């Protein structure tokens, strides 16, 4: 099955779920003539139509990445999400160095340059954001700052 058809089915499913969810929106006691449901329902309806058109007229398949590349992509994804959660509890410097290093390694697998990139970016960006732009970044975990 072509990628476009799969995507069309996904859009169709999401659009139907969206419509179902829109029907659940509570209408306030004070409401306008149109109400909060109509516009989301219109969007859902148009999306369903467009998804059907896509199912009927798919384009050619794109070239999807192969096994090892998927692995690199997933590693990068996991690292970015972990980075998002660690910024606050662990401060800026350490998570940034690790995340930047890993992403760098995924793009170009060279341990030395990746490590240098991570440390360099972490320190450099911290200096720039903290002292030049005055953002309130925390360098290290709050606990370590005393």
């Amino acid at each position, binding site marked *: 099955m072509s990628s476009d058809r799969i995507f069309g089915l996904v859009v169709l499913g999401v659009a139907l779920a969206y419509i179902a969810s829109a029907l659940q929106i509570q209408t306030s006691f004070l409401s306008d003539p149109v109400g909060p449901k109509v516009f989301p329902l219109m969007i859902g309806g148009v999306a369903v139509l467009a998804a059907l058109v896509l199912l009927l007229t798919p384009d050619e398949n794109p070239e999807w990445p192969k096994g090892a590349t998927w692995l690199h992509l997933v590693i990068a994804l996991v690292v970015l*999400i972990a980075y998002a959660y660690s910024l606050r509890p662990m401060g800026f410097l350490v998570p940034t160095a690790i995340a930047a290093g890993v992403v760098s390694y995924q*793009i170009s697998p060279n341990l030395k340059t990746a490590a240098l990139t991570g440390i360099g970016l972490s320190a450099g960006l911290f200096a720039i954001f903290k002292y030049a732009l005055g953002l309130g970044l925390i360098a290290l975990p709050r606990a370590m700052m005393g």
Partner: protein
Amino acid sequence: MEILSNLALGFSVALNPFTLFLAVVGCFLGTIIGALPGLGPSNGVAILIPLAFTMGLDATSALVLLTSVYYGAMYGGRISSILLNIPGDEPALMTTLDGYPMARQGRAGDALVISGVASFVGAMLATIGLVIFAPMLARIAYKFGPAEYFALYLLAFATLGGVGSKNQAKAVIATCIGLGIAMIGLDNSTGMPRFTYGNLHMMDGIDFLVAIVGLFAITEVFFFIETHGKGSAIGVKLEKVTIPIKDLIFTSGAMLRGSGIGFIAGILPGAGASLGSFLAYMAEKSVAGKSGRFGQGDPRGIAAPEAGNNAAAGGALIPMLTLGVPGSGTTAVLLALLMTLNITPGPTLFKDNPEVVWGLIASLLIANVVLLIMNIPMVKIFVKVLMVPAWVLLPGVTMISFVGIYSLTGSYFDLVLMVAFGVMGYFLRKLDIPTVPVILGILLGNKMEDNLRNAMVVSNGDWTYLFSSGIAIGLWTAAILGFVAPIFLRRFLKRPPQPLDAEAD
């Protein structure tokens, strides 16, 4: 000549060695801030307001510094659009469409110079327009009620089909994704939560900056990991940076038309710079017709939206100064600045505080000239970005995106959301689904809905109210033509020529 004496007053306030120095510093900082993904003119100015007070600047100096940052950021937004395919801020979105293809062809320098000049032309014309017409043009805002705004947004969405993708259904799906995301949050008309599933972070909806940075910057990182940078602009052999006189002459019409469209969009408080640059691009595309190579590196595709967004930024000052209505996030910040200085904009501002208004206008003119002078030689430095190896540049862009978004909302929720947008952007781009309509849907979806519903409240549910004024009918006609024309034209014309570098997509 009253205007000239007023301008003289303005320059007497704003022009001295110290403020000129501030203008240079402000323009430089602004350009850098604008170029960083996630940091745009709004948060750039917001970040620097406390700085201005720390330095103990007086009102005029603070105004000069911050307007320079504002204009600098408007200029700077295009740099990462062209070099990295990542818009620095939302008005620079359209510049990616032709700017990045030019960079991939080794013409990054030309693209930067053309866009720099276009920005200058747009901003200059808008400032002149502001000087001459401000009190008169303020009245235009009174002509736009809910029905007119609804038709204006409809016009923008109707022409979306012409952006990118060969398959119109894909553009429609992209628009629906954007509009659907825009619906998340508290419903403005009734205050009821929609699609929030009890999550407090979703109450205020999805910030479009989170979406832009995710869909462009994070997606770019995934693409780099997949392709190891093949087909990107990084590492492409650059042509020598010269001033492309021929292109500048060729695009002068596009700059003028873009400025006009952008200026008008700027004056309307509900429209703003993004819509200005979008409409300027689409108009230029239809003016060019068959001769255009839009989407593949047509210089007019850079000149028009850049002139448009900078002219809109100038135009947006009109409702801000004369009505106190901030037309965009950026003018909202300037409004906050004026209010901190204890100046409340409104219809009597020009009369009550002429030194502030004309000082502001003079500092805009100064900032604009400083930027042009500074930017042309700086192009040589900017294109060097492309010589930084991808394994440094891309992690750098990612980390800047994270800090930019984190400084904006202070919430890890938005960071995770940004990564999710990055994943979505990866699949959308793989399937040749344009991402610009997604952003536009998020930006304009709520305003479109609110205006439709307000129109129905005002008219007691009478749908004919939507076509009740000349302006509304004109916009509807343009919208219908804009939607139907490409379908018909496509039958008569052959398929659009394939991109030269199609394999890189």
